[in-house]
């Protein structure tokens, strides 16, 4: 727990330092080529960019701890736009997409992984393996465009744009999000399933599995009762990694389907050098990673009998 906070603190330093040394100046970009040095300096002062780096960091991190990520550079005079108001709705959209994808992909990955482990080297296992290898190998945007071509253009069942607005009903949202969710799931199911299968099969050569066989236990009970409970640590680690990816790494999918998520917000902010938004996104990504990995560690500890039931 403590180490999570320390990591987060170090990450915040790195984020801030990295952005501070980046070339490019928001003031110059915003004011255009014709800006005089005076106007640039004035503008910088109004944004607080003239203050020393350390001071800016302290005020930024101080606000972030309280949940305030600062004010966007895109604020007009007199109409301040907070970073929270820009990122907030986008984050909600991303979490929504991630939650749906997770609810579909995690149970499917576990199920396929377990089935593949039980029936290993059967035709079922081989075809699942081949399919998931394809899933991992193709880049996401390619899968996205292929799905779009097949299911939105040739057979217009779903929408190629995943724009959702408040007030849509569930069926409509499901139709709109079907293709992005499918694209994401295709990749992460493959990864999680293969790791589940590997973690279980890795245990199947253990002496206690041989013992279970010699007790006449049926193969599927061996996997479910004797192998799976010992495999939760590696499985939860790979699931945490993939769930973090759902939040952090879906930017390509969001761009392809024009879905208003946080990834796209960050890309836009980078383009316009809106540093507070970039920093805010980066900090949220880091937090998501750290929290999910922490959760995986907790599961690993809770399922390890040596730690859960000390002598």
């Amino acid at each position: 727990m403590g180490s999570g906070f320390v990591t987060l603190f170090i990450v915040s330093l790195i984020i801030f330092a990295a952005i501070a040394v980046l070339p490019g100046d928001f003031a110059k970009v915003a004011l255009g080529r014709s800006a005089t040095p005076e106007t640039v300096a004035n503008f910088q002062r109004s944004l607080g960019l003239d203050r020393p780096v350390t001071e800016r960091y302290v005020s930024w991190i101080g606000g972030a701890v309280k949940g305030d990520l600062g004010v966007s550079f895109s604020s007009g005079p007199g109409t301040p736009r907070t970073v929270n108001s820009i990122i907030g709705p986008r984050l909600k959209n991303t979490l929504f997409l991630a939650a749906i994808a997770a609810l579909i992909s995690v149970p499917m990955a576990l199920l396929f992984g377990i089935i593949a482990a039980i029936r290993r080297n059967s035709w079922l296992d081989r075809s699942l393996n081949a399919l998931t290898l394809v899933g991992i190998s193709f880049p996401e945007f390619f899968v996205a465009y292929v799905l779009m071509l097949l299911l939105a253009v040739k057979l217009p069942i779903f929408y190629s744009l995943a724009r959702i607005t408040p007030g849509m009903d569930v069926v409509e949202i499901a139709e709109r999000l079907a293709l992005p969710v499918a694209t994401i799931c295709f990749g992460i199911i493959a990864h999680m399933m293969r790791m589940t299968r590997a973690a279980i099969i890795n245990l199947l050569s253990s002496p206690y599995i041989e013992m279970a066989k010699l007790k006449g236990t049926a193969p599927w009970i061996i996997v479910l009762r004797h192998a799976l409970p010992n495999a939760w640590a590696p499985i939860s680690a790979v699931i945490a990694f993939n769930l973090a990816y759902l939040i952090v790494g879906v930017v390509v999918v969001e761009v392809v389907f024009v879905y208003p998520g946080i990834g796209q917000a960050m890309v836009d902010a980078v383009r316009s050098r809106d540093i507070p938004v970039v920093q805010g996104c980066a900090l949220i990504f880091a937090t998501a990673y750290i929290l999910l990995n922490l959760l995986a560690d907790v599961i690993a500890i809770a399922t390890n009998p040596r730690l859960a039931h000390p002598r």
Partner: protein
Amino acid sequence: MINKPHDTAARHTGEVLLDIRDLVVEVDNSGVWQPIVKGISLSLRRGEVLGLIGESGAGKSTLGLAALGFNRPGCRIAKGSVSFNGIDLLRESEGARRKIRGTRVAYVAQSAATSFNPCARIIDQTIECAMRLGGLTRQETIAQAKALYAEMQLPNPNEIGERYPHQVSGGQLQRAMTAMAMICKPDLIVFDEPTTALDVTTQVEVLASVRRIVTDHHTAALYITHDLAVVAQLAHRIMVLRHGELVEEAETERMLNHPQEAYTRSLWTVRNLEKPEEAPTQPILKVSHVDAHYGDFKVLEDICLDLPRGRTLAVVGESGSGKSTLARVVAGLLPATSGTISLNGAALASSLKQRAAGQLRGIQMIYQSADAALNPRHTVMDLVGRPVTLHTGLKGQACARRVVELLEMVELSEHHITSLPSELSGGQKQRVSIARAIAADPEVFICDEITSGLDQLVQEQILKLILNLQKELDKTYIFITHDIATVKAIADNVVVMQRGRIVQQGPKHELLSSPRHPYTKALLAAVPQMDPHWLDGLLNDSTASLRRQERFQVASAKTQDTWRPARLF
């Protein structure tokens, strides 16, 4: 009074329960099927105990598993038949075989610690077969399991099942596994080296429990072991196997008194190796009043010993007694928390980092498991050549010549120089470990159970090698072992440890002939003798039962006491 299994007449009158005919089992050796069991036949009647003995690779375990119609992955049963109670197991479907396994034929594995699922409570694993069989409720089955735990003389039979495997000691787990095998009242139990991993004192208790339960329930058993003295206590009949073939088969008494084959007789003589004790010399290593801790937990207390130059000091005691910890403290791997250690009169810093290079070179360790201590990706040249270069500065051709010299010292030859550890046998790997330790030209060798993973014949060769090296190079050994026969073979002086303390020390003959401390007595009494009535004698001896009481307390205390950090190699 316990019934001696020899009294039962079962072997003459009972019906044949297990009949294995001309069994051939082959193993896949990179595409080529090589036989590991070469046409063995055996038959076993109801209630009869058959001992299978032989060194590793003799095909004992493979044969034992075949009695359940089971073969390990990578093996296949090529020929022959296994008939259990009239059912031909090899012709039956896998489903039919599964029905018999665990219920009619049960298996007790060598290492209980790894054969229990670490994630499930012992009781759930014990009753798994019985629950599958059905007929009884969970509560009734649990009651049966508890009765069996009590029969196996487990402490707290009503509560012990609620524990996880890592929460009980190795000996208790081994007895729990026997209870697990008994739960469905099988006709046959295959015991695959059930006491090999245990300390001698624990071994006696497990042996006694196993024998009682097998006799009381009139269960037939295949008892696999490499230790003749152990099998002599249980078996009606003994089969000696070697290289997958039958060497000799006879009734126990006749096998012990009149072995026919030269190979069988050679198994008998291994235990008779004995080094004449030599007069003490000036001490080279002095340990005085050393304490050591793992965290807050005291693992060594007030250890004082002198190590005379050119002699062997054997450190004995059961697992958890602090033998290996003592070795780690002397080597500097675990800093002592108080007390002093001196080598050649110069004090040694307690931690490895503060010791001078010469002092580091002066003490070398050889580990029990050569598999774990040798980097599997390094050739023998790398493994032995690196310390040669490090300590003598020799490189290239000169280094290679020195490596060959060292290999010849440990009776390996030049052509092993390019081998990887996986291409060597267990004994050869241990020789490489020894050569690597000699390469540093140390004054003191710490040998941590270096022979306990090896077959008896190989053990004897390694012990002889160690003795010859001592004669030629005048080296000093600290030899950690739990085996009294090994102590007889190599020691000049002996230290007996129990729960982190030295309970008795002295010259070998004195300590072995007149053990003063009760624990030393118990340890010596627990060494199996080549006498089928040894266990009866031990159990009936009233003083022995007192000792057993005491050991029992030690064993239950051990449950809380023995923990150790992961070994650092």
